[in-house]
Every structure is written in structure tokens, then in C-alpha cells.
């Protein structure tokens, strides 16, 4: 029997449609959780917008905005238990905040402070990964460690649609399947990898179906529907905890530029962006909560004010943190400095000339 390409039917999980109306039986999510999910989304968006502004003022460095992906990030991270580990890429501010990284830490990272790499000190979150795909293998190894040490911990790798082209991604899925590891690969398919559309990244009609080739479970979910993401991720984590790795594809959209250094008008149509603004994740959830009588415009406005204050405080903390010193870079190469590193560290006073 020939296995023809793209034969498998992939049904996208959706709970709320674009206008915030229920389209399937309501998953068991209590009002408190609904409010929690939405408030995190508000914080993520507020942080994101401020970061963009600060970058334009030259007060922080290059920033990769996540606007449009709040449901995917918050919904997925909200399902994690404290003992679970997150292995993020560079666009995961929302998810990382939920799992315990401070806003201040993110500001320090974008300000080019060495302290920006310390997420793992207070939260089970790996430092931001720049190399596309590399984090998938770390998540595999982390999951393997938790399996061998009998810890009840799932490792979650966050990656983009473009990242699924990288060898590391495929090797990670393969290992996960072979060793039955407690790992979830959470792909945010935001339709673009810088200037390259998803359609040019892979000939597969979905990313979720790639799971099949590695003998693991795959699922596609509406990534702008926070309830769909949250309930799907809960199920994925449950399976992973039993040693059944899962690949989740959250279909979402990068509303902003790739980073503050990118000009998307060069490669994509404004009409496409506009059509996705209609599907905005916050808008949808807000409409649902108002319908449910647990939210209103006044509360909404207040929530944005609270978030704004939080961001302001975090930025003040970051700005008041002393800049990294050149001397410090020698301290983190090895546990103990080699003779050469010691010499080089003390040569800072003599401009690098060894005396």
C-alpha cells in the first residue's frame, strides 16, 4: 500500500470561534481559571507593547514581539505544573511569565545584561534559546533525566513553524518516541518564519501530522483560542506524564514584525494581517467572558492599568540594576577559571595587555 502524502485528516481543536462563541461542549474550566488565563494574556500583551516602545526609544535591544500569540503561550503554560520544565525560544515572553520568570528578567535580557540569562534560578525555565531547534533536544534530555530519576515532571519545548525544518527538531521527536519520554513539543505555527511562509517550510499540510512518522501523538489546535489550547495542553501533559510524548501544533499568527529589526511589508500583505486581527485571541476571550457575565469593559480597563503598572515597576527594577561588568564574563566559562582566564581577567585593568 502506498502511503500518499497528506492523506491523514487533521481536525483542528476549537472551543471558541472567532467571535467568542462556544463551538463544542465546554471543557471543565472554572471561572477562576478563565479569569487567570485572561489576566495573563493582558499582562503578556502589555509587556509586549511596552517592550516595543522601549526598543524604539533605544532603551532596550532587539525584541521579538509575541503579539497575536498570547492564547497559544498563556494557554499552554497555564496547564503546566510547577515541577514541569519549559525550554523556550526567543519569542516566549508570555509562556515564560506564567511559568515564573519575572518581567524584570526579560527586560534585563533585552538590555544585554548577563543577569538576563538567569531564568532557571527562580523558575523551571531554560534560558532563551537563539539557535532554532536546539531546545527540543534539551527538552528530550531533561525529560529523560526526569524519567530515570522518577520525577513527576514533563519537559516542554517551545518552537516555531520554521523551526520544525531543523534537524534537531526531528531528532528530538525520534528520541522522544524511542525512549517514551515525558516530553511535549509545543509548536506555535504563526504562519511565518521571518519572511518565509509556512507553505515553503514543509510540504506537509500540517505540522501536527509529523508526529505519526516518529510514533508519537500529534494534535492541531486553534492557537488563538486560549480555552482550546489550555484543555488540549492539559491532555497532552497527562499523556506525557505517562511516557507518551506529544507534538502540539497551535495555529496562530505573528501580528507584528519578526523582531524590531524586521520590516514585514517587504514580504507579506497587509490584508492578511488584517484578517488575522479579526481572530485576535484577547478579543475572543474577552467577548466570551462578557457573555458569561464574569467580565465587563470597566474591569477590562482596570486590568490593563494594573498590568501597565506592573510593567513599569519591572522596567524600573531592570534599569536600576547595575550594568554587567566586563570582569564578570570570565566567571562563567568554567567552574574554576583556567590560568589563562585568570590572567585575562586581571588584564582588564591594563587594557588586555598581560603584564
Amino acid at each position: 500500500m502506498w502511503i500518499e502524502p497528506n492523506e491523514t485528516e487533521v481536525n483542528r481543536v476549537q472551543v471558541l470561534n472567532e467571535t467568542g462563541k462556544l463551538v463544542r461542549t465546554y471543557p471543565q474550566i472554572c471561572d477562576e481559571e478563565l479569569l487567570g488565563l485572561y489576566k495573563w494574556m493582558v499582562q503578556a500583551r502589555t509587556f509586549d507593547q511596552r517592550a516595543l516602545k522601549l526598543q524604539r526609544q533605544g532603551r532596550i535591544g532587539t525584541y521579538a514581539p509575541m503579539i497575536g500569540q498570547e492564547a497559544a503561550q498563556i494557554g499552554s503554560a497555564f496547564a503546566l505544573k510547577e515541577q514541569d520544565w519549559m525550554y523556550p525560544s526567543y519569542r516566549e515572553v508570555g509562556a515564560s511569565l506564567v511559568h515564573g520568570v519575572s518581567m524584570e528578567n526579560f527586560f534585563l535580557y533585552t538590555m544585554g545584561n548577563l543577569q538576563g540569562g538567569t531564568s532557571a534560578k527562580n523558575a523551571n525555565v531554560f534560558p532563551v534559546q537563539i539557535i532554532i531547534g536546539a531546545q527540543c533536544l534539551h527538552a528530550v534530555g531533561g525529560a529523560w533525566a526526569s524519567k530515570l530519576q522518577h520525577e513527576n515532571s514533563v519537559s516542554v519545548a517551545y518552537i516555531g513553524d520554521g523551526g520544525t525544518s531543523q534537524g534537531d527538531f526531528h531528532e528530538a521527536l525520534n528520541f522522544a518516541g524511542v525512549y517514551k519520554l515525558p516530553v511535549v513539543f509545543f509548536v506555535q505555527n504563526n504562519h511565518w518564519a521571518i519572511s518565509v511562509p509556512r507553505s515553503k517550510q514543509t510540504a506537509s499540510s500540517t505540522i501536527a501530522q509529523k508526529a505519526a512518522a516518529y510514533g508519537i501523538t500529534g494534535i492541531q489546535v486553534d492557537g488563538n483560542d486560549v480555552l482550546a489550547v489550555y484543555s488540549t495542553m492539559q491532555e497532552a501533559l497527562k499523556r506525557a506524564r505517562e511516557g507518551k510524548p506529544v507534538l502540539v501544533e497551535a495555529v496562530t499568527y505573528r501580528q507584528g514584525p519578526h523582531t524590531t529589526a524586521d520590516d514585514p511589508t517587504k514580504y507579506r500583505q497587509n490584508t492578511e494581517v488584517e484578517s488575522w486581527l479579526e481572530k485576535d485571541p484577547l478579543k475572543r476571550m474577552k467577548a466570551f467572558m462578557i457573555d458569561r457575565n464574569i467580565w465587563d469593559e470597566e474591569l477590562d480597563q482596570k486590568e490593563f492599568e494594573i498590568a501597565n503598572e506592573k510593567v513599569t515597576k519591572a522596567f524600573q527594577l531592570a534599569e536600576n540594576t547595575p550594568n554587567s561588568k566586563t570582569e564578570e564574563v570570565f566567571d562563567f566559562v568554567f567552574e574554576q577559571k583556567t590560568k589563562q582566564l585568570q590572567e585575562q581577567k586581571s588584564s582588564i585593568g591594563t587594557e588586555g595587555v598581560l603584564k
Partner: protein
Amino acid sequence: MTSMTMIEAINLTLRKEMERDNKVVCLGEDIGKNGGVFRATDGLQAVFGEERVVDTPIAESAIVGAAVGMATRGLRPVAEIQFLGFIYEAMDQMAAQAARIRFRSAGTLNAPMVVRAPFGGGVRTPELHSDSLEGLFLHSPGLKVVMPSSPYDAKGLLAAAIRDNDPVLFLEPMKLYRAFKEDVPEEDYLLELGKAHVLKEGEDLTIITYGPTVPLVKNVVEQIEKTQNLSIEIIDLRTITPIDEETILASVQKTGRAVIVHEAVKTGGPGAEISALINEKALFHLTAPIIRVTGFDTPYPVPSVEDDWLPNATRIGEGIKEVLSH
């Protein structure tokens, strides 16, 4: 002659080479419609089509490995690695495949390909976007390693790299892409790979450098010569494989003193190789120990400290003083 920046010179050269030889194809991430994140390939896809200017999926090993395949079967691929720091992903294809195909086929096959990548610091990038990794490839026999320091050099060297019958790693100093313009002839010219450029003659001291640090060294020397009675020779290597022994040795034999400047980390870097070469072949002409002014032996640091980590004017000045103190 047109006055242009280095990025314009690179773009022009790619265009001319693609016009001249229809075997030349470009491949890489975001090089098509977007024209590359630095616009090195801007407009090329519109002229030569999607078959010859290819936006690839994100997979550096595949980009370089496929280029090896293409090159051994009649094409002349020019692959772009978006930032040199990402070439670790393609390390096997670079060092164990492209570099060795001539050797392991006993000369039956060869890979006429170019891998272009921006590199070098001072532009406040995220992690792994500023690393100078040329030393890894200097240490991989079978690869040529080329680094222009000006628009004129970029054009002549890139054209030579594309027409070379061996794999060439062509490293473009990011900081110099738009730093200055100079006159570049539209017509065809080549700069020989393996030939250094004596930028300025001098008697008392030789500074050996390449790529991103060349304009900096020129400035430092200009300042020093204004205020002190000194004459300093500057060599821009242009390529570190092949390395121009003759030019280096002739200069050091004349001046007796050498300072080597590069952004790559110190230990096992190009400076170590150059210094060893001088020791082996011109030791008795030296009147002072050779000094290396380089990046320190750490991963490339965060933006807030990179200016101190890199060889800067003060550090180069101190290095020169030290060598002259003997």
C-alpha cells in the same frame, strides 16, 4: 566607478556573477523575497527567479550539505548562513564534507561553492549573532577562508571566491556593511585568494589584521603617527586560508615587531597561527615578543560589555606600546 557600501558591492557582485554564469545559484534563509536580513541578495530573486535564488527552510546543515551536492554535480552554489554563529549547525557539512570531498575522492570530485555569512561584533545583537568563528575553519584543511574589509575588496574577493574550484567560506563583517562607501569599478576584476594587502607601509612595527578590525586599526595608526615619531605597517590579510606568508614575513623581517589584531577569541585563533608562523620563519628578526589583541577566551558576551571585550582603540594602542617597549 560607482561609490557604494560593502553590502551594495556584495549585491552587485552576486548579480554580475549570476549574469555571467547560469550555473551560479543562491540559497539560504530569507534571501529571496526579503533579499536577506541585511539585503545582500536584494532584488536577485526578481531578476533570476525562484529557481536560482532560493528561500530554503531553516536548516543550515541542509543548506551547506545540499550545496556540496550541487557543487559536485555541476552547479556553483552560493549559500548564505544568516549569521556565522549558526554555522555550528552545519559544522559536519562544512568541515567533514565540503572541505574533504576533493581529498576523499582522490581529486575525482570537487566542490566549487561559496558559503557567505555575516560576522563580527559591535552591533548589539542577540546571542550567537556576533561570534568570529574563522579559526574553526582555518583548522579545517580543504576550505578557503576569505574576509573583506572594504567594498572594493568585497567585490574582487567574492567574484574570485565564486569562480574558485574549491569551497570558500566568505565572511562579511556586519559592522562594515554600511559603515562607509568607496569607489568600486562596475567592470569585472578579481582579487587573488591568498594574497594579503599591505594597506600602509611602515618601518617600526607591523600590525596584521583582517575583516572587521581593519578600519579600526587604520584609525588607531593614524592617530599614533600624528602625535609620535613612528611609522607603522598595516597588513590586511584578506584571506587566512591560504595565508600570505611572504607578505607577513617580509614585513616582520623589516620591522622586527608584530601586533596581531582580530575579534576571534585568543586561544587557538588565527593570531596563534600567524605568531607561530613568524616564530618558525622569522624569529631572529624579532626585537620584541609578538602581541595578540583579540577577543578574550569566553563566549561572545552580552551587548553591555562587548565594546570592552572586543579589540578597541585603547587595547590596540596599549598592545602597540607594549611591543615598542622592548
